């Protein structure tokens, strides 16, 4: 009898608990599934629902939410998965991280060899933000590879009302001189140089043969730059001080390539807002530029529907550091917020505000993990969206998947002004 009562009580309690659990969860939040789409019609309904244990509303930054509500952005959800990691990078980080020191006065790092300079950043550290910024910069070796060879990419110039108005085809080669991981190369090729880049126009003919060559230094001095001007058939040296200006006719500033393209000392500083989760495109599956297609050259972009710039790729939850850049007075932006992945120090996107506090620009990239030519891993930007809400205009970076990290046949000593001339004549191939 006593046992029966106890059993009944236990059963009743279990049923009550079960009912409570199911009842509560059904009231509080429903779990959405991979493949579900967030759009302007259902965002209010979905904001309170969860995906992978996170409220959808918490995964949306202010600007992403605005794009969904006002700019036609539709976000297809996919389950998150970790980036593949190059073991050489892990080993280098373990081996060399302890010897890296931050000099707060110069905002420079000392003793860097390879890997991530500051793998364990304590957010209570007063220099945490600067350390994270340095982590985001020292991505040569992995995830950006020792050498990036992009034989062909396009800038699509998009008017929010009219669609694609112009297309330019370019090529670029970037080589890092710090933190290299490739076999047969020293980790540090030149202690003074961070990277060298050659970018050359391919089409249309008014930019064909127009090229630039730049050197980024480790000590924070402004870049050395040269340009090859085909219209006069000669190289001209340029000043490197205009790093806050737009690149050509694009919507991207020079300091926005891959979100943050500076020596960290060029900004007045950085601030860590905290850790959070956001939605981002980190396993881009649709080709951004399908060269062979007769129906749609750019399947990664919804370029047929206004505002013609939204990505069609799926977004996944990522844990990120939210950073704020303290910008120089003369910088066009008043505020720049950046979101950096916590697994790999990649900046996934940035949001820029003007001096009136209005949303101005959104810069985000669709990442694709790739196998490098030498058997390791790297992460490639499959697409790059630079959206200027004030101009109702965007520039999108797309390329066929012919890009390679760590191609054989590149002599780091030969990336110079002579190679620029050669490249401008179309002779850069690896």
């Amino acid at each position, binding site marked *: 009898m006593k046992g029966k009562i106890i059993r009944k009580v236990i059963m009743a309690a279990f049923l009550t608990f079960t009912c409570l659990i199911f009842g509560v969860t059904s009231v509080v939040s429903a779990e959405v599934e991979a493949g579900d789409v967030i759009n302007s019609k259902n965002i209010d309904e979905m904001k309170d629902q969860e995906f992978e244990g996170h409220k959808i509303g918490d995964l949306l930054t202010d600007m992403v939410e605005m794009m969904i509500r006002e700019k036609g952005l539709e976000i297809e959800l996919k389950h998150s998965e970790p980036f593949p990691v190059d073991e050489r990078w892990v080993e280098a980080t373990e081996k060399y991280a302890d010897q890296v020191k931050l000099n707060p006065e110069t905002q420079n790092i000392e003793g860097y060899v390879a890997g991530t300079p500051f793998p364990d950043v304590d957010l209570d550290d007063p220099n945490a933000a600067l350390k994270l910024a340095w982590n985001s910069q020292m991505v040569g070796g992995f995830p950006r590879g020792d050498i990036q060879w992009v034989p062909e990419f396009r800038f699509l*110039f998009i008017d929010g009302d009219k669609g694609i*108005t*112009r*297309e330019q085809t370019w090529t670029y080669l970037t080589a890092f001189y710090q933190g290299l991981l490739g076999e047969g190369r020293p980790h540090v090729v030149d202690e003074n140089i961070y990277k060298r880049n050659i970018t050359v126009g*391919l*089409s*249309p*003919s*008014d930019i*064909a043969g127009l090229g630039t060559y730049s050197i980024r230094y480790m000590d924070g*001095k*402004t870049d*050395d730059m040269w340009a090859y001007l*085909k*219209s*006069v*058939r*000669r190289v*001209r*040296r*340029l*000043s*490197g*001080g*205009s790093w806050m*200006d*737009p690149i*050509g*006719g*694009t*919507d991207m500033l020079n300091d926005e390539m891959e979100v943050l393209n500076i020596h960290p000392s060029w900004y007045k500083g950085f601030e860590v807002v905290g850790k959070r989760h956001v939605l981002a495109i980190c396993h881009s599956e649709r080709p951004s530029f399908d060269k062979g297609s007769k129906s749609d050259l750019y399947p990664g972009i919804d370029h047929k529907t206004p505002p013609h710039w939204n990505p069609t790729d799926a977004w996944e939850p990522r844990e990120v550091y939210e950073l704020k850049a303290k910008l120089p007075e*003369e910088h066009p932006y008043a505020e720049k917020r950046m979101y950096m992945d916590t697994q790999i120090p990649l900046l996934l996107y940035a949001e820029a505000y003007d001096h009136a506090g209005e949303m101005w620009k959104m810069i985000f990239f669709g990442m694709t993990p790739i196998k490098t030519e030498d058997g390791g891993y790297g992460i490639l930007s499959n697409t790059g969206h630079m959206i200027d809400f004030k*101009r109702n*205009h965007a520039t999108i970076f797309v390329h066929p998947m012919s890009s390679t990290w760590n191609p054989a046949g590149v002599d780091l000593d*030969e990336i*110079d*002004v*002579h190679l620029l001339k*050669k490249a401008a*004549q*179309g*002779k850069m*191939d690896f």
Partner: protein
Amino acid sequence: MYFKPKQLAWVLSMAAILVFFSSHVVHSSNDFTENMRASGHLTQRVSMNMENPPETDGDDRYNLSMFRSTAYLELNGYYDLFDFGVVGRIDREYKTEYLRELDRMSNADLESFYDDAEFREYYVDIEPWDNVQMRLGKQQVVWGRTDFFQAMDVIHGYDFSWRTFLEAENQYLRKPLTMANAQVRMPGGQLQLIWIPGDDINSEDQYGNTYDLRGGRWALQPNKGFDFLTGGVPYNYHHSEGDSDDDHYGVRWTGMTGPVEYSLAYFYGNRQDPVLNSAADPYEGEAPQNEFAEFIFPKEHMIGGTMNYYFRPLDMVLRTELAYIFDRTYNVGQDASEVFAGIPGFDGIEEYDTVRSMIGFDKPMSWVKPLLGARKDGFFSMQLFTTTLLDYDRGKDEDNIVRLAGYGAGHYEYDSILTGILGWNYAGDTVNPQLAGGVQVNNGDFFVIPSCQFVLSDRLRLYTEYAMFFPGSNYKEPGEVETDTQLIGWFENNDQLYVRLKYVF
């Protein structure tokens, strides 16, 4: 166009190289064409007189001086063992009412003068050894760092007959030459070796600068409507001291030393600007073929160098260039009442070692953003270009050497022109104004050229320019005997509004 036998031999040689390599690397026509890249443009150029040239009877202000249509195609092929390039251009001009008038006056058949169809470039690139790249064929090689003018950039002549020397995109004015061009990458820099074979490999008129001597739209005031070439002063490309059949050659080293980029060069070839060989005092004893006068291009030895440096504290690039020309030739005889034929400069030729130098800087200008509403820093460039005659005897030469045959103005010992360019951008670089100008320091004559380039669409580019010349009173009226017409004065009454519409592909 047609080929002379030796030109044809060059072309056939390159074709043979192409075929030879092709047979080794190309397995199907698809393989061959997949590695090709074509680009080019269709261009319509129109210019209008904004002043009335005094040589013509009527008022030609606002009359069209040019209506020129161009098709330009560039084809490049990239293969394992060789690359090639071919550049073709066809120019056709509609003879405007103004040109018909100049044609009537000069009887020069200006239409044939301006119309053109040529393979401007055709070359093969090979790398016979590691770090050695050779380009064989008709091509352009540019040395130096100077805008508008040429100091060390002496390999090619320029065709200034259809557009003034102020044309910014001077690849279209440069006269390509068939040559062997080897570039050897070495520790610390690159060595370049140039050999331009003589013997008619290049047609003779590919050498030296071409000016409008036929009395066309860019004939210098007061020569519009007068054809010098048939009027008594033809070109002679085969004077013993300036024979286009002789070889030309040069060598250049380019490198970096610390933060300084530099180059050193030597070139032996024809003088770019012609000088007048007069029967009054034939140059080196060789009389003009017509026993009166002719334009010749004497050979010169040039050594030169460039340097540039990025001066970070002021965010500016400093650049300089210097060319030393041995025994450069100048015409003499300023006083028309005393010289042969009563024309200044017809008293013969004298030689002076000459230094042509440039010092300048380029700097981004951030003030254009707040002041002009530009979206980014403007580009500002300034340079001082000076021609210095060494061993200049002020007591004698000031009253003797002429700046240009036909004009009584003397050549300054230090002839300096200060030029500047300011360019900025609007609307995502689709509207790009530019202001260029220059002043002859010696006499204050100046020119101003506001211009603007518009990107109208993915393929259409519109460029507008207004070239204005302000020589003060330093110019020559028809029939006038003067002693003060320098560079800017040659273009008096020739302000031009220029519009260029280009379809690019």
